[in-house]
């Protein structure tokens, strides 16, 4: 999985490297291609929702970071990810689920220092006839649309190229505009309304919004965040009737206007209690989550508790979904709780276990899906370093024999000061 679309030469380099032709040095983009298709030089680590953690590490002004200054939001996330040596920085404005609803006039509960939340008790669309009262399409001056555009443009400036933008996936959007409870109630009492709401959301809100973002930023690849459709927030029946068909419809409609729009986290297996783990449901969820986001089978460790998932079930899934032309890649991760609450040594042990069990034949990337605000930086530095050490190909026969020390690191502000002085960073303050 690559957030920055690789160039043709990067794709070829990565592909050849993965097949054993190791005459090139890999850059982050070609390394991702190599990891997707086979064995790279080492497993590439990257991160997704690192926004509020970045804000905390950088001691950034929450009001500016979350609400008013998209450029600042992007810079802070970019440099914190560089400080951690993460490959392929992914910059996500913190309130991905809120921007579209807010722009349309939905009520947000705001606090000064934290992310806002859509007022689930006072949704913009309370009943079916309210759809006709909502003014669409979203315009640039509404809500924080300009902030999102500034964030994406600065992201492009940091990378020197366009990457992947993020928006709110269709099911999560209707949970924002009609409330989760309203959606669940009407799925039972008035399913036709929910079908109408989903179609309206895509045709009248999301596609025009993505077109606006594309026009203002040049980004033409987007990932729809859709945690409201994770398991167990939805069951299989709801997913099959109200999530998958509309993700597909969104993809088709986006394609017609030159945009690639896939949805992430639909049926992400987020069951918390290991006693409730259901191997069949896990496999079903992994299969569909990969297909919804990537169009192919992936083992994606999303926002759930992958550190508790049974290794044998994961191995079976990869094996069962292998075909002549496709080996199911593993997008490895660990939960937000795990990266925050564990000791560095516990993190190292987990990474060794996951690499040992799932990465020996290649096809693994590591993606920290969520890093909580108060995660000790030593945990993230340790995890990144451990992935690069134990994930070096060929993978050592016994990972316990590979020397590893918990890394020492320069404090963020000192590092940034030096980077600025040496011309490798800008003073975003």
């Amino acid at each position, binding site marked *: 999985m690559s957030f920055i679309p690789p160039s043709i030469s990067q794709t070829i380099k990565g592909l050849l490297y993965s097949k054993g032709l190791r005459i090139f040095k890999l850059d982050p983009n070609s390394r991702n291609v190599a990891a997707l298709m086979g064995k790279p030089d080492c497993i590439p680590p990257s991160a997704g929702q690192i926004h*509020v*953690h970045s804000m*905390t590490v950088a001691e950034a002004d929450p009001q500016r970071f979350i609400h008013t200054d998209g450029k600042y939001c992007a810079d802070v996330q970019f440099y914190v990810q560089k400080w951690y040596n993460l490959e392929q920085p992914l910059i996500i404005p913190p309130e991905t689920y809120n921007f579209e609803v807010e722009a349309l006039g939905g009520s947000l*509960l705001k*606090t*000064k*220092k*934290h*992310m*806002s*939340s859509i*007022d*689930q*008790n006072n949704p913009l669309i309370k009943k079916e006839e309210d759809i006709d009262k909502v003014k669409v399409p979203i315009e640039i001056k509404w809500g924080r649309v300009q902030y999102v555009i500034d964030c994406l443009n600065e992201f492009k400036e940091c990378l020197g190229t366009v990457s992947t933008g993020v928006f709110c996936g269709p099911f999560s959007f209707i949970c924002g505009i009609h409330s*989760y*409870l309203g959606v*669940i*109630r009407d*799925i*039972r009492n008035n399913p036709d309304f929910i079908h109408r709401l989903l179609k309206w959301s895509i045709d009248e809100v999301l596609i025009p919004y993505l077109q606006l973002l594309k026009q203002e930023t040049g980004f033409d690849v987007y990932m729809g965040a859709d945690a409201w459709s994770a*398991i*167990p*927030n*939805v*069951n299989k029946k*709801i997913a099959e009737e109200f999530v998958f068909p509309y993700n597909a419809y969104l993809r088709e409609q986006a394609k017609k206007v030159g945009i690639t729009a896939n949805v992430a986290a639909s049926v992400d297996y987020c*069951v*918390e*209690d290991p*006693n*409730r783990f*259901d191997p069949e*449901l896990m496999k079903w969820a992994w299969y569909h989550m990969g297909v919804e986001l990537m169009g192919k089978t992936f083992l994606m460790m999303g926002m759930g508790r992958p550190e508790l998932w049974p290794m044998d079930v994961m191995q079976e899934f990869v094996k069962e979904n292998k075909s002549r032309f496709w080996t199911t890649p593993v997008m490895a991760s660990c939960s*937000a*709780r795990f990266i*925050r*609450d564990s000791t560095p040594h516990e993190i190292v042990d987990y990474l060794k276990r996951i690499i040992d069990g799932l990465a020996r034949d290649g096809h693994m990337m590591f993606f920290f899906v969520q890093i*909580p*605000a*108060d*995660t000790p930086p030593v945990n993230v530095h340790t995890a990144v370093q451990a992935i690069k050490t134990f994930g070096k190909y060929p993978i050592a026969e016994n990972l316990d024999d590979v020397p590893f020390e918990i890394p020492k690191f320069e404090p963020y502000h000192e590092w940034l000061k030096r980077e600025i002085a040496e011309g490798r960073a800008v003073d975003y303050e």
Partner: protein
Amino acid sequence: MKLFLEGLKKAIVEGDMNRAEELAKKALETGESSLKTINDDVVPGILEAGELWKQGEYFVPEVVMSAEAFKAAMAVLEENQPGVGKGTKGKYLICTVEGDIHDLGKNIVVTMLKAAGFEVIDLGVDIPLSTFIAKVKEEKPHIVGLGAYMSTTATTMKDYIEALVNEKLRGSVKVMIGGVRTSEKYAKELGADSWGLDGVDTAEKALALMEVQQ
């Protein structure tokens, strides 16, 4: 009569709030008492939904709808006999901490606590520390439950627990925390007595804390 009542329990298990409300009214019309209806059908209904959740049969939508049906039936029965739904297992004061405005999870916890027999004082969301302390002094709960659903707000839970210590209230009240950004380990670090994974788990652990307290 029995048929109505079995239907009421079923309506709650199946999350049919309209039918639950209708059958609660019918139970009263046929001379059944609010208390008996609650004890025999309404509470068993929501407890069965919780059990189905634990077994992995129910997902959040089913639990949410069962909770709605439970609330609809309880509203009818409490209107008929005010105070009848007040729990007897202990007093539980619950809120989300300042800055945290998520209440879906908290509302399920409240329903499960009520079903488990607690009198629940729900302060709501985004509750400042000073309000929380004042309410603990006023209500004298056996247990307080603090919820945080964002990692930035979870960090403030320690201030609430410290304030209970500073106000010399900690000795008389048990503390539970919950929310998607919390964990058992986190609860221990903060000095809480227990951590609730979800609504069912919170109710079970709260009952266990009451046994310890008594």
